[in-house]
């Protein structure tokens, strides 16, 4: 079985101003005190081609940082990430041609229509514009986005509709690895269901590997072949949903998360 993604000891810290230890205002010549935050703490895992691998954790646990390390948007302080055997730090352009990403905030030019944004994406990924639009159209129709919406500025579309366009834009480039960073957060129940159904369809009909981050346990159980819990930048448990339940007890993944971490993922999400 081909390994689509391998992360070995990924480590990432950020430096931020230390609010607890402020510099007196008159000492302008001194650098403001800073502290190091460990966002991803020596994380290792591997994902097989065609798998949907879930990374679950509360807000601020390091999910998005990990996704950015994989998608060449951050340089790790330590460790290594390879995608289909290519090091993301060395073969940057080759890796970028293999992946695509859907983030929690649909990254679009909001004044442009879906089709204008798709044209732009097609040219960035060296696709035939007509063919790319055809592919994206099929995906958007499949997810229930009516064609009359395709030429409206995206700012006039709901968040759920925008997220469907984002998924179509990512999949039209036929990535071998797609990174879905909380793709259903904040969506209405119908849009959430449409997106989830489509992700399942991708698993059935395409050979695309999916990395899905979420703090929705039900969604992760429904969609993922395997998953890992991340807390404070560390992976604290990994396995199939059934394995995790068997190892740690509990009826639902939420019970398992609580058993492993002593915390509730939802309450943390709300608190942050």
């Amino acid at each position, binding site marked *: 079985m081909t390994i689509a993604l391998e992360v070995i000891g990924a480590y990432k810290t*950020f*430096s931020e101003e230390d609010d607890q230890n402020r510099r007196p205002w008159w000492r302008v010549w001194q650098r403001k005190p800073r502290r190091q935050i460990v966002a991803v703490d020596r994380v290792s895992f591997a994902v097989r081609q065609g798998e949907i691998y879930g990374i679950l954790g509360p807000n601020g646990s390091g999910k998005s*940082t990990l996704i*950015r390390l994989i*998608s*060449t*948007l*951050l*340089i790790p302080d330590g460790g290594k990430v390879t995608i289909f055997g290519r090091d993301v730090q060395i073969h940057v*352009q*080759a890796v*970028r*041609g293999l*992946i695509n*990403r859907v*983030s929690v*905030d649909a*990254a*679009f*030019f*909001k*004044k*442009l229509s879906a089709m*204008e944004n798709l*044209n*732009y*994406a*097609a*040219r*960035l*990924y*060296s696709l035939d514009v007509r063919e790319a639009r055809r592919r994206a159209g099929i995906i958007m129709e499949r997810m229930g986005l009516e064609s009359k919406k395709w030429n409206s*500025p995206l700012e006039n579309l709901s968040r759920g509709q925008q997220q469907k366009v984002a998924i179509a834009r990512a999949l039209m480039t036929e990535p071998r690895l797609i990174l879905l960073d909380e793709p259903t957060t904040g969506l209405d129940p119908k849009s959430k269901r449409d997106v989830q159904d489509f992700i399942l369809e991708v698993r059935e009909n395409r050979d695309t590997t999916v990395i899905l981050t979420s703090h929705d346990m039900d969604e992760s159980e429904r969609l993922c072949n395997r998953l890992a819990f991340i807390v404070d930048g560390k992976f604290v448990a990994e396995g199939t949903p059934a394995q995790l339940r068997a190892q740690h007890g509990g009826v639902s993944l939420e019970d398992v998360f609580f058993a492993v971490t002593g915390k509730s993922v939802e309450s943390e999400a709300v608190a942050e």
Partner: protein
Amino acid sequence: MINMRRSLGATYGFVERNWNLTRRYLGWEVVWLVYNVVTTLTMGLIGVDSQGIVGRDRVLYLLIGALLWTYLSVLFQIMGETVAWERWEGTIEYTFMAPVNRITYLTGQGLFGVTYSLVRTAIILGITVLWFKLDMSQANLLGGFVVLAVASLSFLGLGLLAAVLPLMSPERGPQATHIIQGLLLLCSSVYYPVTVLPGWMQPIAALNPATYTLDAVRAAWINGVPLADVWPLVVKLLFTGVVLVPIGLVVFQIGERYALRTGKLKRNG
């Protein structure tokens, strides 16, 4: 060959994207155009004496300063605020993780910037010539536009150097680009000859490509000097551009690596 075709396609993609955005923000385009026309006319009116007699050379001196400053500052802003603008739209990560190298990205931005700025300058020039009923029959208009095109290279380079600032500091970088733009205006002959500047500023003005651009365009448009006669200035501009653009590209790439290492590509990274 395939790579070349892909790069050209992506370059066109950036130009097309910017054109689509310009159409969608048409209301703002009209606002900025009106503002530029009004400020250019205001500067030109300073050259009209108290009897209402239009001093052609004096008016043209000021008009060309205002016009060229509009051209160069718009070009500088398009390049210098590339990163800040994509960050504001929320698309910076999407654009930067696409399999397109930075030279292609910046070439697309630059190509659009030059075309857009030239069209705007031509519109403002037409309106001001009609307003002041200026006799431009002796002017070497084409020569002036050639100088502008050559000068664009230098300002693209300066824009690239400024574009790195928002990459390195999302909060303060965009403000710093405005400071650079202000200094370029102060240390040049946009509205006055550089000889009126304090002695210590004159060497800085001598390094500023805007100074040569203005001298060459004024010679072509006010006195109708043929391009061959301002050739030394054009060569200086060309040389400045050839030096500044590669330096700008290298600095931009260093800045990008810094942003990727520190998580500053996205504000909440």
